[in-house]
């Protein structure tokens, strides 16, 4: 399976929603503690024994923690940077003409960015300054700021069916559901007893949301009865960094963790762990499932490697 060696530590990987064979990787130097950052745009090779090829790369002054492809424009990419800025890149233009925009509003590191998959015109960024901001590409300033969390907001995710609803996961151990038409959060789910690092909506059931936490577990919640989770998935050895529902199957989800593994789960089954990949040699931090290609997974981690493989195959095989 093809891999790519990044010069900096990997933080996030995302498949392009337009091109099957394209993906982008966000990296940060010195584990993201202090240093530069780089965004790589990679292409899958014609044969799995070849490495991924780099189409273009963009350098940033500070580490890039996350990125999101635009859903409306095939070559635009939004990057969440550790210096609090949100940068817009056009992968069709050379690095000297990039970035197109640099939006500096967050006062702390921007930890995640998510593009609205249904409306396709807006995106949200979440930051360690406890806020979430809503933006559109054509405006130079944020449209709204959502400030309710008591600690860093690690992740924010749009609901795939309801265009105005999104969820946020925070270090204050709660998940909040928001509606951009409402002034404040509409639901508060005290999901875990420890920091919640990631959340994602189920693509086929708009009321299910999964949360991943420092307590090593992943919990699946139904927002209609959120007092108790529908499923608790244990199996990771350390904090779970990212969770993502499959775009093709209602019950499947993948997660990556500080225990260096990527796991696939079926939360409707008694024995939920369906697959486990231990190809990384450092914290596995970034993870994505392709929307265009069923079963295609990509992961990256602090070991500076990016893997792309089909579920069921060995990522390290060639």
């Amino acid at each position, binding site marked *: 399976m093809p891999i790519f060696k990044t010069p900096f530590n990997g933080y996030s990987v995302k498949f392009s929603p337009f091109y099957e*064979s394209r993906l982008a990787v966000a990296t940060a130097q010195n584990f993201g503690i202090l240093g530069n950052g780089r965004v790589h745009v990679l292409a899958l090779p014609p044969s799995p024994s070849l490495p991924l090829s780099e189409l273009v790369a963009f350098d940033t002054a500070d580490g890039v923690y996350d990125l999101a492809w635009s859903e409306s424009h095939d*070559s635009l990419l939004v990057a969440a940077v550790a210096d609090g800025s949100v940068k817009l890149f056009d992968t069709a233009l050379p690095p000297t003409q990039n970035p197109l925009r640099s939006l500096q509003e967050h006062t702390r590191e921007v930890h995640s960015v998510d593009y609205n998959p249904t409306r396709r015109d807006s995106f949200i960024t979440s930051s360690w300054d406890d806020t979430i901001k809503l933006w559109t590409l054509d405006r130079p300033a944020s449209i709204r700021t959502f400030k309710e969390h008591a600690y860093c907001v690690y992740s924010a995710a749009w609901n795939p069916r309801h265009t105005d609803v999104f969820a946020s996961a925070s270090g204050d151990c709660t998940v909040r559901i928001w509606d951009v038409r409402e002034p404040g959060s509409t639901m508060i789910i005290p999901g875990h007893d420890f*920091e919640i690092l990631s959340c994602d909506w189920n693509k086929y059931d708009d009321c299910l949301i999964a949360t991943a936490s420092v307590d090593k577990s992943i919990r699946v919640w139904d927002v209609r009865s959120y007092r108790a989770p529908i499923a608790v998935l244990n199996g990771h050895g350390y904090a779970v960094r990212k969770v993502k529902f499959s775009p093709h199957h209602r*019950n499947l989800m993948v997660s990556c963790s500080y225990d260096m593994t990527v796991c696939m789960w079926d939360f409707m089954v008694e024995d939920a762990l369906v697959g486990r990949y231990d190809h990384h040699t450092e914290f596995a931090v970034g993870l994505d499932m392709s929307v265009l290609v069923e079963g295609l997974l990509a992961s990256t981690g602090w070991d500076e490697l990016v893997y792309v493989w089909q579920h069921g195959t060995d990522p390290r095989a060639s």
Partner: protein
Amino acid sequence: MATPSSPPPSSPPDEKPQNLASELAQPTNEIQQHAREEAPKQSSPSVFVNSEPMREEQVQNAVKFLSHPKVRGSPVMYRRSFLERKGLTKEEIDEAFRRVPDPPPSTQATGTNQEAQVISTSNVQPPAQTQALQPAAAAPTGAISSAGTLMRFRFHWYHIVFAVGLLAASGAGTTVLIKNAIIPRLKSWIRKVILEEEEEEKEDPVKKANAKPSLAEEAAAAAKAAAAAAADVAKASQEMLNSKSEERRHFKEFMNLLDVQVQEMKSMSTAIRKLEGQTNNLGRTSLVDQEDYTPSVANHPKQTYVNGKAESDSRSVRSLSAPASAEPSVAPHPKSYMEIMAMVQRGERPANIRDINDQPPNPNQQISNTRLAPKSKPWEASKSLNNSSQALQSQVNGEDLNSKVQDNGVTYQFDGESAIPWWQRKNARITEIENEDELKDGHYGARTNEQPIQRTWVPPQPPPVAMPEAVEAIRRPKSSVQKEQLAEDQSVSHSTDVTDELQRITKISESGGAVEVNGGGLEPNSIEIKEVQEHSSEEN
């Protein structure tokens, strides 16, 4: 552009709500009891809203919590956050805040709050607050009382009990001392005097008999008085000693507290300095600040494919056993990470950082038009079982293959006439899973899952093989290749039955799939996948 009302989190504020929770036994227990209540659901236009009615019990518990003096001193944000984590809805929290009589003082500095927490968590003698009991400790009490008004309430009656006990103990001690030491000496002295009197009595019986007894009496009385005075003095001196030692102890405590505060202020000032100059390092470790860094031993060598990374850092073995407790255990960080953290916290800047200007060269640059129309998502299209058909729907159009944009000239060539690239899923394993899933709906209920089993994809049902002979017939044309596979198969036949089954099944489906599309063309790929399966099954 954040509003300035948020308090600067100099240390993980998670500690604070948790500390508050540990102090308040009564209200939190009650809250926790009710936190698991199932609330009735009502239909509402939006599903993403709390449609439960306000729970009066929760509100009352929250009011009790908010009225507690300890809680009064904490910032409003933490109180809200605590209640949210206990499962109260926004309305319930707002109602509780409305009901609490005094508006809580929001000017309480987080520094004093932290100090109060430090004191409360350490089991040290309470510093003297009320001056009626400890007149000698006036000076340190004055200083300490300024450190936290909360402490006075907390330790008031404890302190009284303790002081009374102390006095009683000292009184008892002195009386015991006097009984054992001084009185025998007095008695013996008195006896001696009386003996001398008796001797003198023999010489001058009359006068001296009168005088001596009275003298003796007087002497005895004087002695008693002296003894009493001495006892008093002893008592007083004991008290003085005790109070002095207590004073010393208080003073030491006070010094420790000051040290702690100084440390915190130092760290805050360094944080501020760093904030001003560079990006904030301390904040970035918020994820990992909760975990301690323990040194660990590496004994899990892994293959790396790209370069042999010499800096195979020390880390512990991944434990595959079920994590019983939900406590966040230490995630062992790589050694180079620790080195960089240490360097940065000392204020040094790692050498490999470049000065990069990442500002937009043309901030008003027009955003070009997209070249492709947005694609519909798989969940938006059909909700049918057969999602794999969508996946196989070949989106390999010209634009994908010959990406106009930043193409490095890679054109995709496939073996055989099939236009499906290697990364597309080839077989119908997923549909089997889906059939299974549809049958299994209604399996709701919290299901905790333990014991991660290291295995790759296991299809739940074998594909329907109508005619095993047909399978053999299919296999035979590729006998040269399949023999290899069979041989390997036999070599791993020692492994579990499940994996045997798995391999046979997947081989069947693989060969079946290959035959359907293109036997020769996809063969190399299917072989690779099979080999991978072998490899992974061997790993089990």
